[in-house]
């Protein structure tokens, strides 16, 4: 169904309507936020007097107002680490909001922000995971016993026995860096506090995109039911890649500012604020250990994962730890698993969703370990993976942690990869390069790409015995409403809140194909209004949900709608609904397709002349569907969870060269094979692959949210280096295998995140492969000339 993106003409001609372009309320004022310059400080006092007196200022709200008028956001665990939209009592990261100033324009607001007097008493700070776990570490939250927000251990299978009888035990410790996404438009909120007869309410426009469980968290801070917080989201949100899921504390803050100003308030985050204090993927320290038999089969796995979630366990954290719980064994048949999952708070910005969410961290450790196992067993890394793969006959494959892999053919995908890359020739090229004194490396990663998150995994952070009966969490649902107008034009209201992926294009094509209509007879509407668009807690654009879930809901709704149209068409044709079909924009007789009536006449009949319909048929030309897969259950009492609905696959190979003199790394080639089930739109799928690869290149080679020893983060594009077109000019060979999911209506799985999880590991493997004969091992990212230089100098010193 490849066709041009219907979103593009507006975007490419400057007619996109982003939040900062919109002016939904008359008389809106502008806010600026006062932020902490300290990583950790007690707030002795906040004096808002001078700021409030500044000309043009309507309101200034500080920690006192926030603490008095809001409740802490409800957290996923009971650890006492209260989280508000501003610092209260203490500030715990550089950039944490302390006050918000509302003025006539942003210039005045920033002028007045400088007049907010905050008396800070700096406290010792900690940004490193291990240091935060130390006995004498500065304690971030005074009511908590330590800096550990959650700590759970899970055992599945006979782990001790498997390790006791293993031929090899292979272990590795890995550090995954903190990096982010850099959407074109930063966070933006326009909120109005409304006093209604039934009490206060909030209408807020923002470029939030879900998960809508955060709407409940947001409303919880105001003690309001979610229905009193009306969220509006425009069609163009300026990108996110997950990062904008962290916007809701600002929605609360701006709504509170509106209450004080008595006027609607707009706040648009600038780039420095964004890099300083919005969100990021968590940095993770992890230790993996595998029990391996002599032939290279992995029998058991121990994983010790510690996420640095920053200063607060901001929901949906600690989900980074659990999103991949059901697929923690990756593409491999491993029956015995022990996992320790910890989240630690430090004086860094709180973390959250970032494309790949939990997968890039997991697979960096797991795939580095698999490479190490291959070395130890003296087996080629490709062959070792092949030996351990889940096999075609194993599907549906139940993992020890509760995942059920719906479909796949990993061996075929890997064979395609090796053929496309001509793996043997690459190895010969590498040997020749090495003889010439050049560094050339080949890295492989093979990963399971989970899509359509089951939010039930959030429950795992709480021990099973403490999970209240009847208060379970589960599910992976998306919603649509499909309507036919009197002209036969079909409107489709989506609940997925796209971030720019092209949901409208694919939705249009799916509906048109299901109803046998030309594309231009289908009009998708992607704007979200929580007062009118159907939604539930799991709605939104995250965890690659659109392709598996929303398109399934579309098919369900369209199939029901088709019944009504068929009845109306049959009425016009003087026959029964069973005798007709929809195709080519008409309702026609199955047996004599030349006898037909236009779809629009059938729709017109229902609108204008429902009296002519058979008795008992309702004039219903709107259908809603909530695709609700039964496979997404809550976590079991034994802590197993099928953490996603679908599990795709990526096999990837990276080739890097390293200049022996400058030690600069060059990514030369990437070969990738994706299996995302049935392909809905080849061009959009390819776009997602390109984007995920670029994101991965950022994380592997360029981007890092670094903190100085004084706790100051890098907060400009001079220091936070995103790859540009010049850095992504590598040679790409992308291929696809299709093993349809039996669980979704069209067989499609998610595909937007896969390579963002696999390529960091493949690049690390390639760099390690290039430098192995120098005694260098790669256990962290990002990698660049300075890092390679340090590693090579260290090994030289060691051997001297």
């Amino acid at each position, binding site marked *: 169904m490849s066709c041009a993106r219907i979103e593009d003409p507006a975007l490419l001609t400057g007619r996109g309507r982003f939040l900062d372009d919109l002016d939904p309320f008359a008389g809106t004022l502008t806010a600026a936020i006062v932020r902490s310059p300290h990583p950790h400080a007690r707030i002795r006092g906040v004096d808002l007097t001078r700021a409030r007196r500044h000309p043009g200022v309507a309101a200034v709200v500080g920690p006192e107002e926030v603490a008095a008028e809001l409740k802490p956001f409800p957290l996923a665990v009971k650890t006492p680490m209260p989280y508000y939209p501003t610092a209260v009592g203490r500030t715990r990261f550089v950039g944490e909001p302390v006050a918000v100033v509302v003025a006539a324009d*942003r210039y005045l607001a920033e*002028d007045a922000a400088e007049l907010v007097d905050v008396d800070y008493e700096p406290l010792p700070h900690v940004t490193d995971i291990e240091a935060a776990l130390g006995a004498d570490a500065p304690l971030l939250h005074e009511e908590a016993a330590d800096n550990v927000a959650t700590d759970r251990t899970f055992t599945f299978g006979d782990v001790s026995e498997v390790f006791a009888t293993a031929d090899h035990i292979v272990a590795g410790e890995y550090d995954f860096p903190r990096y982010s996404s850099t959407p074109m438009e930063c966070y933006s909120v326009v909120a109005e506090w409304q006093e209604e007869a039934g009490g206060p309410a909030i209408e807020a426009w923002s470029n939030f995109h879900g998960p809508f469980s955060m709407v409940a968290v947001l409303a919880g801070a105001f003690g309001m039911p979610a229905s009193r917080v009306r969220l509006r989201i425009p069609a163009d949100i300026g990108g996110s890649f997950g990062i904008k899921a962290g916007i809701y504390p600002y929605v609360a803050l701006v709504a509170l500012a509106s209450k004080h100003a008595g006027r609607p308030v707009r706040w648009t985050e600038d780039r420095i604020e964004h890099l300083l204090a919005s969100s990021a993927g968590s940095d993770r320290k992890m230790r993996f250990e595998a029990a391996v038999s002599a032939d290279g089969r992995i029998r058991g796995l121990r994983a010790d994962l510690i996420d640095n979630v920053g200063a607060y366990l901001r929901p949906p954290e600690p989900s980074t730890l659990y999103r991949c719980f059901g697929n923690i064994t990756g593409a491999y048949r491993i029956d015995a698993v022990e996992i320790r999952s910890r989240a630690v708070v430090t004086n860094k910005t709180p973390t959250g969703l970032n494309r790949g969410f939990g997968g890039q961290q997991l697979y960096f450790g797991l795939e580095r370990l698999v490479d190490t196992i291959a070395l130890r067993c003296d087996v080629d890394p490709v062959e070792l993976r092949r030996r351990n793969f889940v096999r075609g006959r194993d599907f549906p494959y139940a993992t020890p942690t509760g995942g059920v892999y719906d479909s796949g053919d990993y061996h075929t995908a890997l064979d395609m990869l090796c053929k496309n890359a001509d793996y043997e020739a690459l190895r010969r090229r590498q040997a020749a390069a090495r003889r010439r004194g050049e560094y050339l490396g080949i890295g492989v990663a093979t990963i399971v790409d989970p899509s359509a998150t089951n939010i039930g995994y959030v429950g795992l952070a709480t021990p099973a015995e403490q999970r209240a009966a009847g208060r379970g969490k589960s599910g992976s649902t998306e919603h649509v409403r499909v309507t036919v107008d009197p002209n036969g034009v079909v409107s489709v209201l989506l609940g997925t809140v796209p971030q720019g992926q092209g949901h409208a294009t694919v939705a249009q094509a799916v509906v048109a194909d299901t109803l046998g209509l030309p594309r231009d007879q289908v009009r998708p509407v992607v704007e979200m209004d929580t007062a009118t668009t159907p939604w539930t807690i799991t709605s939104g654009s995250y965890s690659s949900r659109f392709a598996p879930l929303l398109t399934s809901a579309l098919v369900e709704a369209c199939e029901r709608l088709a019944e009504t149209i068929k009845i109306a068409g049959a009425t016009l044709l003087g026959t029964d609904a069973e005798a007709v079909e929809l195709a080519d924009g008409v309702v026609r007789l199955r047996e004599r397709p030349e006898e037909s009536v236009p779809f629009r006449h059938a729709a017109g009949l229902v609108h204008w002349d429902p009296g002519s319909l058979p008795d008992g048929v309702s004039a219903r030309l709107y259908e809603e569907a909530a695709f609700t897969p039964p496979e997404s259950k809550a976590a079991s009492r034994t802590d197993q969870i099928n953490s996603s609905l679908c599990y795709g696959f990526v096999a990837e190979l990276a080739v890097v060269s390293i200049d022996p003199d*400058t030690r600069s790394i060059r990514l030369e080639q990437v070969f990738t094979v994706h299996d995302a089930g049935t392909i809905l739109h080849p061009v959009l799928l390819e776009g997602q692959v390109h984007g995920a690869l670029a994101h991965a290149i950022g994380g592997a080679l*360029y981007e890092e949210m670094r903190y100085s020893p004084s706790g100051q983060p890098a907060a400009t594009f*001079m*220091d936070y280096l995103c790859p540009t077109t010049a850095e992504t000019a590598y040679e790409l060979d992308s291929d696809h295998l299709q093993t349809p999911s039996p669980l979704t209506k069209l067989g499609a799985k998610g595909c937007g995140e896969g390579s963002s999880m696999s390529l960091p590991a493949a690049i690390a493997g390639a760099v390690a492969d290039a430098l192995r004969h120098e005694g260098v091992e790669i256990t962290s990212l990002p990698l660049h*000339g300075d890092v390679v230089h340090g590693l090579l100098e260290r090994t030289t010193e060691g051997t001297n």
Partner: protein
Amino acid sequence: MKAAPFAYARPSTLDEAVAELASADGGGKVISGGQSLVPVLAMRLARPEVLVDINGIAELGRIERSDGAVEIGATVRQRAVERDRLSAEVPLLGMALPWVGHRELRSRGTVCGSLAHADPAAELPAVACCLDATVTLSGRTGPRQVAAREFYAGAMMTGLGPDEVLTSVRLPLARRADGYGFAEIARRHGDFALAGVAVHVRDNRVTVTGFGISDRPVTRTVTGEVTGDLLDAMVDTDGDGHASRDYRRRLFRVLAEREIGKARARAGRKERDDDQ
């Protein structure tokens, strides 16, 4: 990210500009292309009382040749020089300009603005030092000429007085048998250099200027071989998150040796051409 309040002046003569700066008594700041200054203003890291916009001063927009040299005025855009035959007449300038930011930035940024901004990792100050260029500084007491090699006093620090405008730079045109080299390494295309080098070879004399390796461009002129120790000693910057001092030393040495070799080869080739 909105600038703090400032007054704005757009004089049409140099005298008026200097008078504005003088009356601001140290609180004035000259703007031409604004590619470095505007972000700094937006971040409130610079808070001038008066912004003196020199784009309306016609005489500062000229490129003039005389006595084997070229003079580039203060409002001449980098991109204009890049596209002018000047980039062939002063080959080092032509080699360096593509490395300055991105094309979009060069279409607004000026050659003299980059010289006055004095970022230690910037390309154009290094070119000026390597070629032994002269800058003209115009203040209340009239214009004065300062050698580029004397102009830089540290990171973002120069000999420019508070009431002075850097009105032009004078660069010598290349002689036929001169050889040049220029290279830099940055984390990404268009970033400030981790280490960079400009090289000028004339006869048996080699001038090497490093940038990104100290708090200002560092220039050495050597007759005969350029030793590794000499190159290493030029690098005295502290490391940062992008590169340690030790790595910068390695990069600078690799780049300098490569570019000196190329510059010597180019000079030698032209000499041979002349002999034939």
